[in-house]
């Protein structure tokens, strides 16, 4: 005897629903561009305190603005077309897990940055692994493309001697950001075509 529906598949629907419009990819892509680009500008400018504070403030404002814009777009465009869903608040265990993961990634990043020669390939491998995991977990083909593109960018950057070390990693972030934003924009266009704004819906 089997359950009448595949319960495990149904319970991951909400996470897939959040990503199906491509807005998440556009937002993460733009965030990568803002953060990577902001730090690249910071490295290129002379190290004056005022400039440092200004670029950091602009980067933070950009990230906050993107987060605000993402919520507004979801409310105005996605929810009326494909329905509203609120994901549950993370549990205490999940918060602890996320902090542990951030700590691990931070520590690993510091280690990788200290070993100058493997910086770009190592970061690319981490990003590609994350994209691969997300693609398989949420059945998102676009994430698998992101993983492949990340590896291609890593090969290009490794062959380019002027973009090594921290500059190479930031350039990789910007390149991944651009590819995510472009793929997200295509997915967003397809989402709008497939989901015209419906009439009023109620039970």
């Amino acid at each position, binding site marked *: *005897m*089997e*359950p*009448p*529906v595949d*319960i495990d598949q*149904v*319970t*991951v*629907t*909400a*996470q897939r*629903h959040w990503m199906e419009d491509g807005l998440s990819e556009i937002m993460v892509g733009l965030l990568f561009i803002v953060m990577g680009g902001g730090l690249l500008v910071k490295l290129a400018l002379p190290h004056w305190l005022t400039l440092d504070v200004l670029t950091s403030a602009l980067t933070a404002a950009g990230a906050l603005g993107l987060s605000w814009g993402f919520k507004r777009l979801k*409310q105005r465009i996605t*929810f*009326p077309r*494909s*329905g*509203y*869903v*609120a*994901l*549950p*608040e993370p549990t205490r265990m999940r918060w602890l897990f996320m902090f542990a993961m951030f700590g691990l990634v931070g520590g690993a990043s510091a280690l990788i940055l200290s070993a100058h020669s493997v910086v770009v390939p190592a970061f690319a491998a981490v990003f590609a692994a994350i994209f691969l995991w997300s693609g398989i977990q949420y059945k998102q083909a676009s994430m698998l493309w992101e993983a492949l593109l990340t590896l291609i960018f890593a090969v290009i950057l490794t062959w380019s001697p002027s973009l090594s070390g921290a500059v190479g990693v930031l350039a990789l972030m910007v390149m991944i950001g651009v590819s995510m934003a472009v793929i997200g924009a295509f997915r967003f266009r397809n989402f709008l075509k497939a989901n015209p704004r*419906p009439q*009023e*819906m*109620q*039970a």
Partner: protein
Amino acid sequence: MSDLDRLIHEPARLTIVALLSSVKEADFLYLLRETKLTKGNLSTHLIRLEEAGYVEIEKTFRGKIPMTLVRLRAEGRAAFQSYRKSMKDILEPSKMRRVPVQLPT
């Protein structure tokens, strides 16, 4: 089999409860889209679940557009977990059962 909650075991209602179990709240349109039921069918199933005390339905507005929000109540969550456990108990012994094979001597 007698332990199974017949209200949840029905495929459409099981899909609705499973969808709601992984979210804080969802609107009617989301459920309509994911269950692929008709508006009338979905309404009927939601009313049955509400009568059983498994879900909470709130009629509200998004701007000027009416919106029906649905949440799984604690009773519904408990019933869903109990259903999953019962299903697991039914399935697992059958997986573990070994048929003795008489080898020719």
